[in-house]
């Protein structure tokens, strides 16, 4: 954690070019940037010497919208930030407002939330795995990953009628009781998933092309991760065994046994291994959770009109991408005075410049993939 200002290209209004250098624009409409990300690359031959991210193409002013909606009305909007992990977004927001209201969701609701959130983590990681492998040139895993993800989306659909932007949770608990065969569906998925995840890792883990493209690419050590605020699998792959589900448990995570997978080198390959292992751990959490879903109400006593006492609260969860935080300020009215969303993708993306310097253009694609960003969340 050097005290010097991180040498970041973002501040340069124009890039000064040397005789052998050129500027290449990647994006905003480039299939490998996972959305509308534009990266200005300064190249010396094929090698990146400097870069600048241009973001904001998807900025919708979510935080401004929050100030003009009631607490409940805003809940569906958060699903549209990280739209491949809508359930996690919703969990963070609902829990933050519950803290603000000083209510707690009933145990049954917390367990069902945990199950759905862990399924969402698997779904998000599967989409990441498929597209990341596709970026690097392995076409096949994408189809398999989509097949598995489909199973999860079907469970979501059966539970709340929506597949992508689910709005599965409500402030205070859940709106819908678990459907009759939820446990069976989750169990069936988990039983088959173990062999499937092994299959994917067999496709890639020992694959020499995969290793060649990912080993020592985009290295970010633990000190840099912490200094840059990078969280989630990026942080864990650098060797920091830290996960908010363990450090500051929320929902029902304190009841389950699971491990925090870590890497050692902090490169693209380690991040891949960490995410694969995280899917295995999520599967274990789901299996433990369905064994004993407590009976009881699914909704705490909250009014129809929410008026939290004036004050503020910060709550963060471990979303599939990293620390997803909500800072909610109430003035005692029916609408939030301010909602700040701490987006993991935005902050992880900040590390991109450091990670791609000195690498080839082809590696930039791999590194954007390994950061697992969703531009809807970066831009909000």
């Amino acid at each position, binding site marked *: 954690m050097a005290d010097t*200002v991180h040498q970041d290209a*973002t501040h340069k209004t124009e890039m000064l070019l040397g005789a052998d250098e050129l500027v290449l624009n990647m994006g905003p409409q480039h299939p490998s940037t996972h959305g509308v990300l534009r990266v200005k690359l300064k190249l010396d031959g094929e090698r990146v010497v400097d870069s600048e991210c241009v973001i904001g193409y998807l*900025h919708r002013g979510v935080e401004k919208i929050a100030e003009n909606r009631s607490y409940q009305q805003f809940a569906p909007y958060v699903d549209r930030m990280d739209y491949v992990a809508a359930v996690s977004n919703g969990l963070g927001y609902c829990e933050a407002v519950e803290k603000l209201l*000083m209510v707690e969701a009933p145990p049954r609701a917390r367990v069902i939330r945990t199950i759905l959130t862990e399924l969402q983590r698997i779904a998000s990681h599967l989409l990441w795995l498929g597209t990341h492998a596709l970026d690097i040139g392995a076409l096949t895993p994408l189809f398999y990953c989509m097949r598995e993800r489909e199973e999860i989306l079907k469970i979501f659909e059966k539970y709340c009628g929506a597949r992508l932007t689910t709005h599965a949770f409500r402030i205070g608990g859940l709106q819908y009781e678990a459907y009759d065969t939820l446990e069976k569906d989750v169990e069936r998925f988990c039983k088959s998933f173990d062999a499937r995840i092994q299959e994917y890792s067999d496709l890639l883990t020992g694959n020499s092309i995969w290793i060649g493209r990912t080993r020592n690419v985009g290295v970010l050590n633990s000190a840099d991760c912490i*200094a840059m605020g990078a969280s989630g699998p990026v942080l864990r792959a650098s060797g920091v065994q830290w996960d908010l589900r363990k450090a500051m448990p929320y929902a029902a995570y304190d009841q389950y046994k699971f491990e925090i997978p870590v890497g050692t080198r902090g490169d693209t390959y380690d991040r891949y291994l960490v995410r694969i292992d995280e899917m295995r751990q999520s599967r274990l959490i789901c299996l433990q959770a369905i064994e004993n879903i407590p009976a009881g109400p699914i909704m705490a006593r909250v009014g129809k009109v929410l008026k*939290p006492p004036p004050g503020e609260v910060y709550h963060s969860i471990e979303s599939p991408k990293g620390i997803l935080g909500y800072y909610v300020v109430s003035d*005692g009215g029916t609408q939030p*005075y*301010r909602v700040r969303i701490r987006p993991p993708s935005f902050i992880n993306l900040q590390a991109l410049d450091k990670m791609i310097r000195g690498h080839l253009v082809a590696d930039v694609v791999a590194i954007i993939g390994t950061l697992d960003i969703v531009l809807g969340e970066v*831009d909000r």
Partner: protein
Amino acid sequence: MAEEPKAPQSPESLQSKETGASPQPSAAGAPAAPPVKPAVPAAAAPPPVQAPLDNELTRRYREHFESAILDALQDRKQPILIVDHAKMLQIARYSRDTEKFDLLEDLTAVDWPRREKRFDLVAQIYSFTHNTRLRLKIPLGANEQAYSMAGIWPTANWLEREIFDLFGIDFLGHPGLKRILLPDEWQGHPLRKDYDILQQDTAWVRENLGIESGQ
């Protein structure tokens, strides 16, 4: 739209905020928010949501920085330090190096247009060593500049650009302060309270997108 009536109402609601959540060093007892009181009978009865805080940590901060620590309180059990902006860099560095708050989890701002110091800069810091979180709040006047914390926590770089973009707060010593989410030529700072939700830079939209505003 159901949101329309909000605009005329906002002055009163703003006032209530100022009494409720503003960092008054003397009376941090927040539940005494007179205008809102009748509306929250159920929630006002349990223990007060905000209370002065006096523990080891705040005492150490007070010892080191004395009057620069304007107030220490907790809100829903989350510790908050209100800090003078003139000393914010020293306090940030002390937080990172001595108190081991090595992660700047989030940095944002809140606009209180009717308060004397218009903005609150809010930093959530986290310590891996102690597994604790602390919130630093730095009140800033409308034309006051903040000091950039990018030299202490590099994360602050983009976060400060975002605050500059959406609130118009200037950061001294930032390595490259420019807009990040909105276009560089955009006029106005949307997260300020006087920026209406339907407002936009129509001239920019007309010029760059070639359309009249849909609103």
